[in-house]
């Protein structure tokens, strides 16, 4: 049976305590974001600038990509192009083989998650150590991240403690985050020091300079990239920004939106390979160029992966990342995934009340909730809805567009509700499962109006 968001959400909610914790914790992150953005009178102007810079960039993307490649090469960086996930993985594998590399560390990159790089390399007998604390936790547990910025937000410290006890030999029952983080630090320091290859993501690639910026709080990207002899940075084609000065706009927005920090601890600007190092960039398409051609949806390529839309979304907060059954979860996943696999993601644009909070926290002004609405139209047009729903809609639209039919059905419906309440008050009616039906009045407003008309 196909697992849908609704079914997975229901499963998640069954654990009320965990759901409430998840909801409260992410709401707290949203509040930290609010506090941070309200200190800047220019916040809305920054969002507008960011949005316009990204709109501009998308309109000149091929030119900026070419400029970036040319400048990056001049900086001594090796540039690769990957049409899809498979090619991205193959390129990285080839570099690994060329240097006969054994020890690989990776900092957070949603792109490598999207490409399933770890799994690919694992099948070739190569282990990749994720070094972001949250990512390491879920990696040890053989789980995917449930949130793009807070990968282990679905876990309680007790669960992390058990995992660390098992794999890192920490004390059983010691749940102290400070203690557990220290254990991870020591464990991963060894991995960093032994590493021969560091894989990282890219937050921003600057066309003007041919360099790129990586933002972390932990410092794991830097620990990897500066120790290993080879550094591979993976980026989607949409990571480009035109000028170095535009970094100011995006760095001001990113961390404030993500966690409420004024900036991440480290904003590392890589321009050239380090002494004796090799620096590679893999520029990945994987459906993005096609997405760019979808007028109604290209806007989502502006995303800077801050996850503010996750933290604000009541559906995400109360249903958890895994209910989105894809590598990019949350409202963002719901608008990105249908582009690459509409059938598997057909339920995701419906996992929303269209409350619109996402579009208004978005630092680059992506019209997320409007895209959710538009994806619904596309998904229906392409036939990815059940026949039952289609027939139902046919009947409803037939009735509602014919006033006399509508009045007749309304009257009949209310009469049925009053006379045979059990017809609607049963298990087959999802409304009635946990909610009472509205009382059916004897007369409609129109009936009343006709009687009392002036």
């Amino acid at each position: 049976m196909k697992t849908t968001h609704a079914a997975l959400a229901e499963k998640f909610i069954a654990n009320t305590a965990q759901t409430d914790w998840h909801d409260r914790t992410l709401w707290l992150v949203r509040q930290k974001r609010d506090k941070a953005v309200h200190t800047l009178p220019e916040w809305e102007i920054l969002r507008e600038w960011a949005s316009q810079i990204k709109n501009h960039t998308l309109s000149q993307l091929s030119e900026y990509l070419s400029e970036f490649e040319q400048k990056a090469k001049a900086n001594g960086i090796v540039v690769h192009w990957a049409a899809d996930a498979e090619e991205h993985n193959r390129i990285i594998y080839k570099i690994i083989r060329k240097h006969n590399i054994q020890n690989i560390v990776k900092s957070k990159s949603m792109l490598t998650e999207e490409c399933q790089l770890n799994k690919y390399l694992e099948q070739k007998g190569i282990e990749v150590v994720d070094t972001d604390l949250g990512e390491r936790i879920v990696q040890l547990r053989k789980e995917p991240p449930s949130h793009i910025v807070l990968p282990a937000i679905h876990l309680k410290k007790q669960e992390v403690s058990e995992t660390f006890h098992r794999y890192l030999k920490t004390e059983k029952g010691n749940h102290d985050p400070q203690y557990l983080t220290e254990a991870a630090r020591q464990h991963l320091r060894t991995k960093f020091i032994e590493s021969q290859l560091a894989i990282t993501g890219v937050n921003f690639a600057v066309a003007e300079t041919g360099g790129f910026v990586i933002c972390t709080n932990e410092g794991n990207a830097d620990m990897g990239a500066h120790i290993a002899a080879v550094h591979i940075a993976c980026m989607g084609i949409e990571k480009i920004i035109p000028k170095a000065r535009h970094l100011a706009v995006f760095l001001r927005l990113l961390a404030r939106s993500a966690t409420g920090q004024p900036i991440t601890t480290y904003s590392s600007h890589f321009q050239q390979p380090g002494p004796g190092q090799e620096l590679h960039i893999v520029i990945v398409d994987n459906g993005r160029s096609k997405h760019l051609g979808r007028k109604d949806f290209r806007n989502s390529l502006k995303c800077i992966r801050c996850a503010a839309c996750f933290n604000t979304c009541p559906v995400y907060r109360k249903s958890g990342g895994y209910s989105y059954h894809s590598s990019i979860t949350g409202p963002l996943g719901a608008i990105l995934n249908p582009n690459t696999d509409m059938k598997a993601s057909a339920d995701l644009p419906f996992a929303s009340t269209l409350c619109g909070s996402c579009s208004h926290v978005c630092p680059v002004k992506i019209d997320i909730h409007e895209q959710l609405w538009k994806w619904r139209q596309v998904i229906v047009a392409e036939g990815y809805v059940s026949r039952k729903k289609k027939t139902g809609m046919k009947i409803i639209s037939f009735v509602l567009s014919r006033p006399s039919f509508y009045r007749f059905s309304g009257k009949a419906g209310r009469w049925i509700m009053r006379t045979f309440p059990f017809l609607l008050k049963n298990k087959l009616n999802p409304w009635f499962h946990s909610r009472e039906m509205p009382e059916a009045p004897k007369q409609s407003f129109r009936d009343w109006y006709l009687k009392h008309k002036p």
Partner: protein
Amino acid sequence: MKVALFIPCYIDQFYPQVGIATLQLLKRLGCRVSFPLQQSCCGQPMANSGFATRSKGCDNNFIDNFKHFDYIVAPSGSCVLHIKEHLKSETHPEEAAHIRGTIYELCEFLTDILQVEYIKASFPYKVGWHNSCHGQRGLYLSSMSETVSPEFSKPERLLNMVRGLHLSIPRRKDECCGFGGIFCISEEALSVKMGTDRIKEHELNEVDYISSADVSCLMHIEGILKRNKNNIKTIHIAEILNSKL
């Protein structure tokens, strides 16, 4: 001023008292109000389910009913937003545009067009306010917590004119209740969870009523309240503004 009253289908059928209150209130405030008799639905149930192509019949019927008025007023932010954003007509584009530009949700019509400063109403209860998302983030009936802008709320301004009313704002002042149209059926469990959590906040504030500018949110909240035998009642803002208790 020729004002047409648009009473969305589910209000017409299940909450006639909201339509009555809206009509009486507008008349008291001096409007010449008509109720076009062949109206039915705005088409939102189809469109939000992905069947916008099937709302053509509703669109045409809506245009036929409402094309000859200065203003159209409805006690539902959600339906008004739908018309504003999606009412289309291949044959009568100008009439559709006229309607999109002149349709108002009740609160904004009172504050922006009628510029009401005084309402003779009294409602001696503690009322928890629920911002409906479409009214707030779609029609900008009030400022929202997401953006950095001066705070305002058109419904709160109106409720503050009501004698005896004690307004109560929940901690998460603009969190969705989980109704969401088709969502309340397709994601039943989550929808109920969201509604239950909203109610909890109002319970903490010991409110007598939960009120909103959207009946759809209230219908969902009411359903949960009644199932749990909760004493809190729901009431639409039009009923409060038309109240002389």
